[in-house]
């Protein structure tokens, strides 16, 4: 289970970085969002990802997963959602002002 988690994180970061390096700004935003999801998975993994164990302490000797990272991830996902929404609106405005959504349409950025 841990191995599949690691592979997923690696793939997400890899695809995310690839998309960050594209010329299209929409791909940049998708890339950012994939990277933040990879970070979320790392956070889930930090509590010891134990597959199907629930993060709830039930009566009896049933094993349970550490609930804290899952609570943290829930918060992080909500924040990531808000940020993605903001970025998409920003992109919409940029494409309206500049008439395009490619890196080459950005004209006033300097060092």
């Amino acid at each position, binding site marked *: 289970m841990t191995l599949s988690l690691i592979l997923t994180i690696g793939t997400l970061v890899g695809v995310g970085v690839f998309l960050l390096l594209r010329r299209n700004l929409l791909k940049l935003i998708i890339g950012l969002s994939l990277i933040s999801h990879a970070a979320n998975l790392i956070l889930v993994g930090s509590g010891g990802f134990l597959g199907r164990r629930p993060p709830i302490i039930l009566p009896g000797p049933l094993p349970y997963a550490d609930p804290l990272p899952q609570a943290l991830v829930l918060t992080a996902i909500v924040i990531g959602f808000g*940020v993605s929404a903001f970025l998409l609106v920003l992109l919409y405005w940029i494409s309206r*002002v500049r008439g395009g959504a490619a890196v080459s349409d950005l004209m006033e950025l300097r*060092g």
Partner: protein
Amino acid sequence: MNWVPAPILLSLATAILCSGLIRWRRAQVWVSLLGSLATTAAAGRLLLLVWEAGPQVHVMGGWSPPFGIVLVADLLSGSLVALASVVACLSLLYSTGYLEEREARAGFHPLFHFLLMGIHGAFLTGDVFNLFVFFEVLLLASYSLVAYGGTGAQLEATLKYATLNLVGSAVFLLAVGALYGLAGTLNMAHLPARLAAAESPAIVLAILLLFVAVFGTKAAAFPFHFWLPDAHSSAPTPISAMLSGVLIKVGAYAILRLGGLVFASVQALAQPVLLGMAAVTMVVGALGALAQRDVKRLLAYSSISQMGYILLGVGLFTPGGLRGALLLILNHALGKALLFLAAGHAVHAAGTRDMQAMGGLRALLPGTSAAFLVGVLAIAGVPPLPGFFAKLAILQALLAAGHPVLAALAAAMALATLLYLFRAWQWIFWGTTQKEATHAVPIGMRAPVAVLALLLALVTASLGPVSAWLTEVAAQVRSPEAYVGRVLGGEVGSPGAQGGGPAR
């Protein structure tokens, strides 16, 4: 009555009220100003309480630490909250004049108070993940505020700012995950003991360096500073003052808090990295500023350079270095806010940001010219202003710690600061009038500049007590036993924790 969450809650309440009043522009402005005054008063009260009775703790939701999230105000965070709320108050007053003549878009005031809430929260929280949440609050608000005018330059600067800081946030989460995996707690007072007991300091050091990269991005430390000149120069002027005056200090505060408290066991190991970053930041900022003709870009680059000085003091972590860094934070918060706001007058009057196209504004704006000079003297570090003593303390600390090369570099960059700031003052206010400047500057924009200049004069006049105060703050940062004791010890039940949450 527990005062620790008061600045956060008052900002939040003001933001919500302002959102509700979005159609009633005048009422919104009054609520916003009053809310910001109330926040400042609460911050002052909190600081007084911390001074009299030691660190204050608020347990959120009644979950006792280290399990629940705590808010902690010690001298460092209390002082910074007070400083931030004062600068915010003045920026807000300035914005009432600044926005008057521009297209009135809704949402400025709510966003401003959300920004303030994030700043206060980041200063006051005692939990690493909660720090992440408050960082996101303040970043999201600041993205929207930088893009506020909706011009092409602002939107592009926001995209760059947001992209770099979002990658930073992902690394932040990664570091939080690693920290939790290693220590099993995220409470700042609980972490030091757990980390000191960790089997290999190498992995603790690696996590600390991840955090340094994250907060270096927020504090615009080299090589993560590239977003700052664009974002700080294209933002509306009162927001530039907030970003440069307060926001980048949150990054420095986080490095200081984590390095001094949470990662105290490996702090010395990370020192070469921090000092190197700080030195390059200082040089890159100063050289960048020397090359600018746009007044706001010059001030933005100057902020990078000053952050380099602050991080030098933070990285040294000696009493003298910390005192210098803290004094420089105070000096830069007031001085750079003053410079941005005063430069706003000049830009407003001349209708351009190109300093060489301004010229001769002294006749039209004599008060602004004098105030700008005060800011220049403060940031450039000319005695008797506090900037001089701050840089002197950092230089002495560098020499005492055996870094003569860094000290020489810092001295040279102080001269460069003097050069580019005086040149800017000369370009803007002296010489022949190049343009028939026509715009009168409204009173709402003049008053905050005058107040900031007076505050700088006040700090200069009472440098002895200020310095003694900062020495005390530095001492508390270097020996956080009181902080840890208040959060984890039995004292939590006393004055600290009565206000919040249901009875346990």
